[in-house]
């Protein structure tokens, strides 16, 4: 059994409520931090832990905190990113629904470390029932002296508010989120200035993911040095993986980052394999924005090593033969699935979600959707495949925010690894319509694609 740090108490009945959470060791980390550590010591501990942001980019959290500007007399803000809209990702929802106090305790410690007296949780609007759970937990924490004025007699004040979004993937991008929190359209800002200098209301702001902030609690409890002993290398601690698609047991799993991808998919402790004895075709292991990889490259790296569930191993081979941990949205495709159709669905998603500020993203995502639709519906030409490649290349790196890249990469990777399937759709339009899947790559491991 893998060790757990976040969900170890998730099975306890009533853990959603303050009394049960407290009785099971809850708020001990908050007491420790506020009473026996200085804010800088907390940040130091987080640096030592090697914790990397769980929202997708994997940026070291302690380092990010140390960038926060601290001008005199200007308020600072912590914003919890609970927008969770990356297709395949549903782990933050689990934390908030079942362990709201873990998040609130993490927010309390983090706000203390950053010197923020007002903290907002920005949650996607569709999670409409979760603000009630969070607000009930916030009220309980207030009643028990863990929020409000002069917390635990330390002189530290904190209020936490929940703010709902209203349906826009782009509001997960931190500067779009800040715009949305200010009551505007979710258009990402041009950086610099970075939020650490000018964020919410032009004040220094840290934006962190729900899971990142929850992980602060075990880090303070066991100490950064102990946290490093979980996981491997630069992938310290545990990670929540939300597994979906063609799996026997989809759901949210906490893994220690030292297991192989194969074990995660096939062992009974985790996803329990693929339904109906079907074979694995491909996987998008880190949410829709990361490159899709075929089965052979998923289980073993191009060097022939076992692929592990760590930031480094998933990334091994870069874009040519690797992929990314991303947000931990693990999407599995079995042998019956059509990569063209799946890519079309993602292209439509990004087109729908582009905020429209930059032309390469706004126009490019639309073109990619259109071209893919043609190929999928039997109206494609061979040259369309090169056209697609060309469009995605022109988006990548030419936009204000990374949504453009996020839209380009899935298309690039699909063509790189499954070009013959796109060609098959063009050559066999009628059959592609009837059977709606292309060539299956499970049978013969593909030759490893050269970097293009």
């Amino acid at each position, binding site marked *: 059994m893998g060790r757990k740090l976040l969900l170890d108490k998730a099975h306890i009945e009533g853990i959603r409520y303050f009394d049960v959470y407290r009785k099971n060791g809850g708020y001990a980390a908050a007491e420790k931090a506020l009473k026996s550590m200085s804010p800088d010591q907390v940040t130091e501990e987080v640096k030592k832990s090697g914790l990397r942001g769980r929202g997708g980019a994997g940026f070291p959290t302690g380092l990010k905190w140390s960038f926060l500007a601290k001008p005199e007399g200007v308020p600072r803000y912590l914003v919890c990113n609970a927008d969770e809209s990356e297709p395949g990702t549903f782990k933050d929802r689990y934390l908030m629904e079942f362990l709201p106090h873990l998040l609130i305790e993490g927010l309390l410690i983090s706000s203390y470390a950053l010197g923020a007296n007002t903290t907002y949780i920005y949650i996607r609007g569709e999670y409409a029932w979760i603000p009630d759970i969070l607000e009930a937990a916030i009220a309980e924490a207030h009643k028990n002296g863990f929020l409000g004025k002069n917390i635990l007699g330390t002189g530290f004040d904190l209020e936490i508010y929940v703010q709902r979004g209203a349906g826009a993937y782009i509001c997960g991008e931190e500067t779009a989120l800040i715009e949305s929190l200010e009551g505007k359209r*979710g258009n990402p800002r041009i950086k610099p200035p970075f939020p650490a200098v000018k964020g919410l209301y032009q004040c220094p702001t840290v934006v962190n993911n729900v899971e990142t902030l929850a992980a602060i609690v075990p880090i303070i409890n066991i100490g950064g040095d102990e946290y490093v002993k979980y996981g491997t290398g630069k992938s310290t601690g545990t990670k929540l993986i939300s597994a979906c698609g063609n799996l026997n047991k989809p759901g949210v799993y906490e893994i220690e980052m030292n297991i192989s991808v194969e074990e995660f998919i096939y062992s009974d402790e985790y996803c329990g394999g693929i339904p109906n004895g079907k074979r694995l075709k491909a996987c998008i292991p880190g949410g829709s924005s990361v490159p899709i990889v075929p089965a052979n490259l998923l289980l073993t790296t191009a060097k022939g090593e076992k692929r592990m569930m760590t930031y480094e191993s998933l990334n091994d081979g870069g874009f040519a033969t690797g992929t990314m941990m991303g947000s931990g949205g693990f999407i599995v495709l079995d042998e019956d699935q059509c990569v063209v159709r799946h890519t079309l669905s993602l292209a439509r998603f990004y087109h729908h979600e582009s905020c429209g500020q930059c032309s390469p993203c706004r126009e490019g995502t639309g073109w990619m959707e259109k071209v893919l639709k043609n190929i999928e519906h039997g109206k494609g030409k061979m040259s369309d495949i090169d056209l697609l490649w060309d469009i995605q290349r022109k988006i990548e790196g030419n936009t204000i925010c990374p949504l453009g890249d996020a839209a380009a990469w899935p298309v690039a990777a699909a063509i790189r690894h499954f070009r013959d399937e796109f060609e098959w759709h063009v050559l066999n339009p009628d059959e592609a319509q009837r059977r709606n899947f292309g060539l299956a790559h499970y049978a013969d491991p593909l030759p490893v694609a050269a970097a293009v």
Partner: protein
Amino acid sequence: MAVQFSEEKLNKVKEIIARYPDGKQKSALIPVLHLAQESFGGWLSADTMDYVAGLLRIEPIEVYEVATFYSMFNLQPVGKYLFEVCQTGPCMLRGSDDIIHYIKEKLGIKVGETTADGLFTLKTVECLGACGYAPMMQLGKFYKEHLTKEKVDQIIAECRAQANN
């Protein structure tokens, strides 16, 4: 019907505005629009948006800008029950296309339409963060997950029964 929040809802608006620093009441816009949509028939008319602008002391255009950006705000009337079925990749892998097709047939409407009795509207939406419990849809405040044809039948029957009460 003049657009006007109840006393209780006006207090809620005040409470929401108080979450933000002085002069930053515009931050309350999205939460107040949610409240308005729930209170005034499930959509935002021009009158409703103007009313919200007045409450927050901002220009109506600032409200329109926001209302048109976010997909959860309905700018046209919708049925009493809004079926928002997820169609993104992970749900598609688990058969969301079949579910959408089934609902269309069963209700005799296309995506984006409302049934003649004004009860049901069908919309397709992008990933709602329930991919592991697919196929799924949002119905009002909650999610309906692990959808099957039988489950869709049951949901429709329940809505009809509730509407007749």
